[in-house]
């Protein structure tokens, strides 16, 4: 059985569709006869070809939001479409800043529950069934919806491999954005892009992350040096992000980025469930931790029980010498 229609909340930057959107499109086109995208931005024409290639027959666009934070106006625009009789069986978005804001607002607006943090979707009969990992990924919980649709679902990045379906460009249809009144009052006045050297956490083939075992903020430089030598992205556990050693954008885990690199090196990270969810899918994991009982060793391919302050400098010197 398949559903008749699913909407995917599309995200894009610089005229390129986000990888997470392509992942979701790839999955949901197996689950529904019709897949359509919703997009908030002034450049829907530029991304229509790519959305179509991955399975969306149409893209509804709100147009440029003139700096408004998208949660309220986009949720209101989607709700107007749904209330106008054009309701899909499900609306799927990525667990992203934008996705969570819009899904949360839409949930309140439509009085529909939203199931979050999913890593898989399937259809059982006429029902969507979602899979969410809990306890650091050791257990999967499958959930279905009991009330009327449209059913709201958030999917974690990197849950599916994006594959082109070779579809024709999506038709672009502009939709009305109802006046949001005072609730739509949040406006972006300036954007700041933090320059990061080297590859991004999402795309790097190697990720080197540091944790509390580094002892102090100054020691994080070892993680950065090692990352540079390996053309890797530096990452971090929540503990040292909370401690203010590195920005939130470095965080790998349930509340940060999900990474699946070829090699993940965890330096001084014990492996709290919150961290494991974000990196357990890596192809190879190297862990260095002084506590032999640390949970990180239960998922590592190579585990070193030892002091990061000794091993990282040795490793850096050895790599420099090559």
């Amino acid at each position, binding site marked *: 059985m398949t559903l008749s229609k699913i909407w995917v909340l599309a995200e894009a930057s610089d005229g390129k569709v986000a990888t997470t959107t392509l992942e979701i499109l790839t999955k949901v086109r197996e689950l529904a006869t019709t897949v359509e995208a919703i997009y908030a931005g002034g450049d829907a024409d530029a991304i229509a070809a790519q959305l179509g290639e991955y399975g969306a027959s149409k893209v509804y666009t709100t147009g440029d939001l003139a700096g408004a*934070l998208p*949660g309220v106006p986009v*949720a209101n625009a989607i709700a107007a479409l749904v209330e106008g009789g054009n309701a899909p069986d499900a609306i799927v978005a990525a667990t992203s*800043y934008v996705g*969570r*804001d819009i*899904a*949360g*607002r839409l*949930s*309140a607006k439509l009085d*529909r*529950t*939203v*199931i979050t*943090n999913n890593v898989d979707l399937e259809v059982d009969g006429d029902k969507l069934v979602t899979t969410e990992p809990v*306890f650091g990924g*050791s*257990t*999967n919980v*499958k*959930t*279905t*919806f*009991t009330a009327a649709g449209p059913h709201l679902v*958030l999917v974690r990045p990197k849950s599916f491999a994006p594959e082109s379906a070779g579809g024709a460009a999506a038709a672009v249809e502009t939709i009305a954005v109802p006046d949001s*009144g*005072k*609730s739509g009052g*949040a406006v*972006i006045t300036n*954007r700041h*892009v*933090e320059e990061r050297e080297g590859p991004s956490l999402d795309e790097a*083939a*190697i990720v080197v992350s540091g944790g509390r075992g580094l002892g102090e903020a100054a020691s994080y430089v070892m993680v950065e040096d090692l990352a540079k030598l*390996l053309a890797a992205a530096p990452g971090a556990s929540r503990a040292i992000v*909370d401690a*203010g050693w590195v920005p*939130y954008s470095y965080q790998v885990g*349930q*509340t940060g980025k999900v990474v699946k690199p070829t090699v993940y*090196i965890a330096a001084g990270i014990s492996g*709290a*469930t919150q961290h494991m969810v974000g990196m357990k899918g890596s192809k*190879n994991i190297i862990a260095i931790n002084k506590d*032999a009982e640390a949970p990180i*060793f*239960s998922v*590592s*391919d*190579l*585990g*070193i*029980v*030892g002091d990061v302050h000794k*091993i990282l400098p040795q*490793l850096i010197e*050895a*790599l420099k010498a090559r």
Partner: protein
Amino acid sequence: MNVVVCVKQIPDPADPGALDPTTKTLKRDGKLILDESDSYGVEMALQLVTAAGGGEVTLVSMAPNGEVSGLRTALAMGAAKAILVSDDALAGTDALGTAKVLAKAIARVEGADLVLTATESSDGYTGTVPEQIAGLLDLPSVTFAKQIEINGSTLKVQRQTEDGFDDVECPMPALVSVTAGVVEPRYPSFKGIMAAKSKPVDTLTVADLGLDGQVGWAGAGQQIVAIEEAPARESGEVIEDDGTAFEKIVAFLDNLKVL
């Protein structure tokens, strides 16, 4: 400047517990503590009230069994009072139901200029409750704030984004979710701990909020159909560093042809 902070009392993350085999929800029968993620919102609220030169911080929480230990921690930090919604009828409540309860409780606080939440709880981490509350209360909102300043009746917020941060302006009253690490949560002083014992905690039921039948199992729009063990990741060799373990790492990376 009156600030409401939503706080969650959760099982100690060091002992994350288990799923109840019958109800398929997280067991919350042990002692609960203040979610560390919420301590940042409490600290931020206290700092904003101090900067404004007046006002108070009110806590709002939903927890089973009249649990107040996490609330006492936040009261000891300096919050003035708390509203606790505790009712057996709340078992099984989903994220939207939780937002309905918290929104009704927040609406009881008179003259609130700002509602603060964490971006997500450390145990359920749906991350949708802040926007759901804002939607139900028809408030403007800014999520993922890493810094908040007040300028008259306008909030100036630095909001975390994928590749940096945005400056966002938002009229008050409003709801803001704050990321962990925005401020350094204070440790309660001995005086604070003693004072917290006598600070008012108003305990309410679902009926008090007029939400009968809309929350708990009855109101949840979702149902768990299966709980499965995820395939375990095989672990490999674990060695003790004898001074040459770095060579093992180099060899491992060499073998993968990533150097």
